[in-house]
């Protein structure tokens, strides 16, 4: 959806109108993009409500369970993701200044950092999986309800976040291709800008996930 951001406004062109004028409304497209980001926030919002309810109910168990998480990996991942937001901004800025090759390099760096994030996440998850801590896993099933709740929330929330990282990487790939083909260009950079907005949201959600899960003890 966001990948289409830049051209959505232009899509108002119908065959008869195309010959006369190009309908392009960057402000309109941006309005749509912000509304979309708003729905994303609310999607995570539902999970944050559930987290708040059960943290209130199972405060002690949450503290206990949080010991199991690897703080070093969580903090490293935070730096990785924050840096990727920086490289994303640099990619947008470079394209706005008509430095196409530089923009592509920064976009590549963002993509690489996103990969790095997912690799670290994968290592964390597989370590937990190894110990049978996994939704439906035997160890998690045997835990006291509050701790089980903590880990189930952990997997659901970081899982949904991880899916957003993956989608973001897919979008970056397609945007890179469209920059190369000239469809996204210094005079028409909205699609890249919107990818950036989306990516910052992914980053923002993680900034809340880190203290809620890794730092609660």
């Amino acid at each position, binding site marked *: 959806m966001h990948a289409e951001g830049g051209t959505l*406004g232009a899509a108002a062109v119908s*065959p*008869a109108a*195309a010959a006369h004028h190009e309908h392009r409304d960057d402000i309109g497209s941006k*309005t749509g993009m912000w509304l979309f980001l708003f729905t994303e926030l609310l999607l995570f919002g*539902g999970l944050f409500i559930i987290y708040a309810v059960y943290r209130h109910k199972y405060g002690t168990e949450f503290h206990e369970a949080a010991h199991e998480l690897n703080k070093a990996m969580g903090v490293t991942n935070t730096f990785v993701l924050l840096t990727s937001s920086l490289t994303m901004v640099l990619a947008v800025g470079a394209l706005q200044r008509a430095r196409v090759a530089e923009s592509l390099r920064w976009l590549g760096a963002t993509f690489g950092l996103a990969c790095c994030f997912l690799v670290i996440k994968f290592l964390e998850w597989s370590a937990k999986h190894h110990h049978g801590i996994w939704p439906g896993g035997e160890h998690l099933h045997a835990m006291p309800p509050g701790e089980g709740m903590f880990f*189930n929330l952990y997997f*659901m929330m970081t899982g949904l976040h991880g899916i957003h990282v993956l989608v973001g990487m897919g979008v970056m790939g397609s945007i890179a291709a469209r920059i190369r083909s000239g469809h996204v260009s210094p005079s028409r950079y909205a699609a890249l800008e919107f990818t950036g907005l989306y990516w910052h949201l992914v980053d923002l959600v993680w900034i809340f996930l880190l203290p809620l899960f890794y730092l609660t003890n």
Partner: protein
Amino acid sequence: MAESKTGPAWTGNYLQDYGRRRGLMAWLTTTDHKRIGLMYMMAMFFFFTVAVMLGVLIRLELMNPGMQYVTPRVYNSLFTLHGVIMIFLFIVPGIPAVMGNFILPLQLGADDVSFPKLNLASWYVYIAGAVLALTSLFAGGGVPDTGWTFYAPYALRSGSNVSLAVFAAFVLGFSSIMTGMNFITTIHRLRAPGMGFFRMPLFCWGLYATSWIQVIATPVVGITLLLVIMERWLGIGFFDPARGGDPVLYQHLFWIYSHPVVYVMILPAMGVISEILPTFAGRTVFGYKAIALSSMAIAIVGYMVWGHHMFTVGMSDTARRVFSILTFLVAIPTGIKVFNWMATLYKGSIRIEPPLLWALGFVFLFSIGGLTGLVNGALATDIHVHDTAFVVGHFHYTMFGGAGVGLFAAMHYWWPKIFGRMYNRKRAIWAWGIFMVGFNVLYFPMLVLGIMGMPRRYADYLPRFHTPELISTVGSWILVSGLILMVWNLIRAIKHGEPAPANPWGGTTLEWQTTSPPPQLNFAVAPTVTTGPYDHTALRAAAAKEAQ
């Protein structure tokens, strides 16, 4: 792209093919808001027909005490399907997807919505959700039997095909969000020159408030429904008391969406009524700003009243009181609208035409629905009527008598614009009369039954409920005959109706300034706006000139 049939010289309308593609492919790949609106209409009326038949079956089983035609389990599936299809496939997309898509850009004086491709995508997502919902009937564990609310913990345990049905609702939510984002952006960006927010027709205001609710409320139920699937699949236990979870939390999250969504159903219908009444009263609407802002007030306050669905689940008294007071507050903007509509008719030059009759039917039925809603919203009386047939009667008065009748009113109002043909006036009025009688015979006994103590969702009942149940079932047959006559009359008009002029009703909003049916790009000359939306002076002057 340029062909003989494109370009400003081409004078065809949107129903005729243009460009490269012809026939079915031209429709399936169109980004024209008018065609997408019609595609929604065809799909929705298919599902509406199915759900009406299910409803008739439910009534048939309830005609006599004891089990006659279906088993209790099948009965559970019947009302679940009736609810899921009516809510998610018919009323929620309802007026916005059909009439909003068709009329909104016309009323704003725009060529199309802001994101035409997204608009088409939303139709495909809707169809995908519908296919998933239909698949859930035939695949796997059998037809879902949880009721349309999918309450935990039963929805977590039921052996029926709940996961697929829930996923279908999730997908349909996406379609709804896409439409909402599209309309908000369109209203902000594509109003004709001179059309400030307070010169917008009230139907657009209704859609604007609706779209915000769609965008704000839908994601929450989206994630909740996904969690129900995860719960069934992996046993994550968020809503499962056996694993330390809380089923009441599910109800909260569900109603945080599903209460605001009843305003998604009703606000566009209120917008339709606000269009029809000034047109047939031949005067401007009374209290334009009050009606416009009350739509927003309903949307905002309506977001915070979800707890009134849960007065009996064991919430704290403080929460119950707050939710009850807020529920009563929603009645205020609703009352403002009803009184303004009545004031609009006062001293108007009223012409009795089918759209006006449907609109008045809306006001009558919705008032009953709204007032019985307050019985549910008051803490003490709710204990008595909670989960009884009274609630079923109440929400059918609001949803069907409100949103459904609002859609029928809109169809009778804009049908000549959409197809360029007039339907038979006499038949339309007969259909309206039969429908109104059938409606009240069908649903009023439910209110009585509920107060007598008949629970909802029960397949069987005590003999003392027999008479009202029988009356109600007879009502369902009358109502369906009215519906059949109405639909037949409208469909017949597409082929055999008299050609419609551009402005058959004497409407003042922009959609009446273009031809019927509109050309592909809506307006031959882009309109500009210099007055409020319901200024009849120009029309009256023209009529006086003609009379001379």
